[in-house]
Every structure is written in structure tokens, then in C-alpha cells.
């Protein structure tokens, strides 16, 4: 049976009092913020727990927030769906912009492999424990991470002017 967001949030806060930093409900889709280190265990719990059963990772993506407090942050966003229970959840991990490192979700959800490569390619998030962390969209010798807000466009690539 589908669970409402507040129920799921309460369940998570009860189970991970340290790791889960709270739920945000006043901005569009509600989400739960978790400490980056705890992402694998939180995902594991969400996937396996009876009644939650988030068996499908819809996507992993990222947001660059250079103006966030503490020198800016990069958020990694996980969208989960339970095909058996019929509920959805958004989970976020907030990383420091200077050194965005996050444990990989690939051991739990193999679908995260390409998504994390894309987040690495475009935002520069390093996923520890990822089996194949290479660029996926840009050429392998590309410089910089294009979705960073302060990304500077290349003057040329491969001898072709980009201006």
C-alpha cells in the first residue's frame, strides 16, 4: 500500500536519527536530506524494508548551488519509486562544493552506474566505490564540468574554434 511522504519521512528519521537531516515539504516535491556518508545504508533500507520496497531507482542527478551557505554546495538527488507499493521518494545528499565526494549507489542499484557517470561528468561529483567512473557525455579529454554555474566555455576543442 502506498505510503504518504510524512510517514516515510518519520520512518527514516526514526531509523537514522543521525544521518537523516530532515524533510523539506514547502518547496514543490518534498524531499529528505541525508548525510552523504549514509546514502548507501539509507538506500539499502529504502529498498529492502517491508512496506517501503523502493525497488526502482528512477534517476540520480545533481544541482550546483554556488550561493548556498558554507561556500556553496552540490546536491546529489535520488528519485526512487516502488513499483509494488506505488509510492515515490526524493532523497538528497548535500556535498561541499570544494570537494564533492559521495559513496556510490551502484552496489545497491546497478541502474545508478550511468547516472553517476553523468553527474560526475557534468558536475564533478566523485562517487567512491563506483566501478567505472569515467565521463559519459563529454569527450574523455574534456576540461571542466559544464553544469557548474561558474563553468567557462572552451575557446577551442580539437583545433576547432568554439566561439
Amino acid at each position, binding site marked *: 500500500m502506498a505510503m504518504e511522504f510524512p510517514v516515510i519521512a518519520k520512518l527514516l528519521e526514526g531509523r537514522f536519527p543521525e544521518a537523516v537531516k530532515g524533510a523539506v515539504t514547502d518547496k514543490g516535491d518534498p524531499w529528505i536530506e541525508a548525510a552523504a556518508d549514509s546514502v548507501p545504508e539509507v538506500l539499502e533500507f529504502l529498498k529492502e524494508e517491508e512496506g517501503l520496497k523502493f525497488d526502482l531507482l528512477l534517476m540520480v542527478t545533481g544541482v550546483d548551488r554556488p550561493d548556498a551557505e558554507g561556500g556553496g554546495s552540490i546536491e546529489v538527488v535520488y528519485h526512487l519509486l516502488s513499483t509494488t507499493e506505488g509510492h515515490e521518494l526524493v532523497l538528497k545528499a548535500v556535498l561541499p562544493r570544494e570537494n564533492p565526494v559521495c559513496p556510490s549507489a551502484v552496489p545497491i542499484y546497478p541502474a545508478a552506474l550511468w547516472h553517476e557517470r553523468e553527474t560526475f561528468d557534468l558536475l564533478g561529483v566523485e562517487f567512491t566505490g563506483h566501478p567505472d567512473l569515467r565521463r559519459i*557525455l*563529454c*569527450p574523455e579529454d574534456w576540461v571542466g564540468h*559544464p553544469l557548474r554555474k561558474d*563553468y567557462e*566555455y*572552451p575557446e577551442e*576543442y*580539437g583545433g*576547432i*574554434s*568554439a*566561439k
Partner: protein
Amino acid sequence: MGPQNLPVQPAAPGVLLTTLDEALDWARRGSIWPMTFGLACCAIEMMCAGAPHFDLDRYGAGAFRPSPRQADLMIVAGTVTFKMAPVIKRLYEQVPDPKWVIAMGACACRGGPYYRHGYHVVKGVDRIVPVDVYLPGCPPRPEALLDAVMALQAKMDRMKTFSAGKPGPAGEPAGAGKEKEA
């Protein structure tokens, strides 16, 4: 375009006389073999142009070849990214002379919607290969591609491989597919 367009001199019964240039241009414009490849949404329109409703084959240009070595026309149909650029350049180089290029769509002409904010897009395929016909539109309709093919055929008709002036620098006949013309 058909045999009736071949300028012939009446001669004895059963004999046609024309110049080698006329015959060559006529043969070339009537059997354009495009290379089979598409890069983005323009390719959908290109496929549509090749399908029965628009029937690119009416102009002798419907024999899409799966190998650049058998083709003489590249229809660059879509967005050329920096990642794809070296591949396109190599494919162009693998096409035997004489060869032609149609830049199909706004992206291939000038980068299109990615002109200002596309860090990953080559701002026009003419930065990597010479273009014979520019076909703007986003995407151009199949009729527009037919028009571009006819513009290319008009250009082929003017090649005059053997009589057009001096030979090129590499010993090639002048105007062998490399001429830049508006």
C-alpha cells in the same frame, strides 16, 4: 532530370553526339549516392525525404550507401558536437572525389539553437568540412531537402570537369567538388 535533359547534337540515325563534360555532369547529377548517417532530428526529415511519400529517388539521390567509400554526398543532418566532429571529418575524408556536402538544418549550418550557449556544439559543420549547399530550418521539411538536392544538381551541372579552366593545384581538374560557391 532525365535523358531528355542531355544536350545532344542530332547526328546520323542511332548516333548521339555530346561533349564528355555534358555527359559526365548529366551522369553525376542523376546518380547522387548519399551516405547513410544522421546526427539528430534533421535525420528524421531526411529519412522522410527518402521514403515513398517524398521519394528522393525521383531525383536520382535515393541510393543511401552504408559506406563512405561508395558515397559521393554527405547530408550532415543534425547537430555536430565536438565529440562527433573528428568522426565526421574522417568520414568525409573517406569519401572518394568528387564529393559534396549538404549542411542540413540550423545546427549544421551555424550551430542553430546552440550557437550562444552550446559549449559542446561545433558552430557549423563548415568549420571541419567544406559545404556545398546550406539548408537552414529547424528542422527543414523534406521538400526543402529536395530543393537543396536540386540546388546541388544545378551546381554539378556547372562542373565541366574537362573544359573548366586550368587544372587545380594537386593536378585535379578545377571545380572537382571543392569549389566554394554561394
